[in-house]
């Protein structure tokens, strides 16, 4: 505990701050952080001078959450949509499906058919594999 406190007082490097921001990004992509909170925490991480301040910026986020682990299919669809500042209704209209279906896909309750998967990938200008492929770590583990 004493050593932790001692380390908390040490000055954090740029690499430490970047690592903390990567963790925050990963949490945002997985919907663990809202947009406003993400921005606030990134600002807090950038302004952090010590390890203790950096730890406060990533407080409550699991340490295993890193940007190296790609998000699952539902989060990828959500991420692509929010990046384009589209509502679920807008995406549904563009794809010719109902808003409830987009909600189901983004929540992981429904796996789209091949034609719809292609339509989604084409709409976001990414490959089907990139959008709907299994998580790389999980695929490697099999």
């Amino acid at each position: 505990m004493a050593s932790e406190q001692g380390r908390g007082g040490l000055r954090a490097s740029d690499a430490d701050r970047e690592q903390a921001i990567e963790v925050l990004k990963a949490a945002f992509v997985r919907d663990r952080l809202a947009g406003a909170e993400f921005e606030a925490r990134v600002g807090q991480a950038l302004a952090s001078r010590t390890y203790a301040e950096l730890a406060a910026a990533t407080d409550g986020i699991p340490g295993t959450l890193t940007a190296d682990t790609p998000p699952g299919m539902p989060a990828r669809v959500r991420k692509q949509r929010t990046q384009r500042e589209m509502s679920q209704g807008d995406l549904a209209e563009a794809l010719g499906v109902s808003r409830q279906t987009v909600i189901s896909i983004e929540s992981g309750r429904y796996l789209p058919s091949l034609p719809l998967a292609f339509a989604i990938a084409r709409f976001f200008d990414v490959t089907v594999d990139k959008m709907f492929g299994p998580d790389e770590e999980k695929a490697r583990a099999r």
Partner: protein
Amino acid sequence: MMRFIRPRLRKPLLRGIALLGIACAWVIGSRTWEPAIVIAIVAVGQTVYRYIWAGEDTDESALQGSRADERQKQVGLRARALSGSVALAAAYIGVVITLAVKRADAWPFAALLAVTGFAYLLGLSSYGSGEPGPEDEVTAGHQTRSPLSS
């Protein structure tokens, strides 16, 4: 004929017509108008209600309004499958109970059981793969495996 009717109105109208059919059957069978008029009013009312309901933004409304997407169609299909299974079970229970109590009235349940059973077999033959096709020459005699399963 259905093409000329708005998709949103199709299913509500069909259900209304089905109810009107019951009203007609009542008039033919019992020669009394009063219950038939009540059924007809209910038929018109439920058609209007279902038409309004079909315009809402829910899965049920999309199915009702004949504008369901692939997931909603799947939901509808599963609901139909469940209702078929329940009808089959109800018919079976009906046969068992009527046979145990009064033998003469068992035939409608038996007929329902036979029809649902036949419909199931018809579904298998219609939607199943049918007769197996000739084996591909390349893979003939060999067990092919997906590279993903290795």
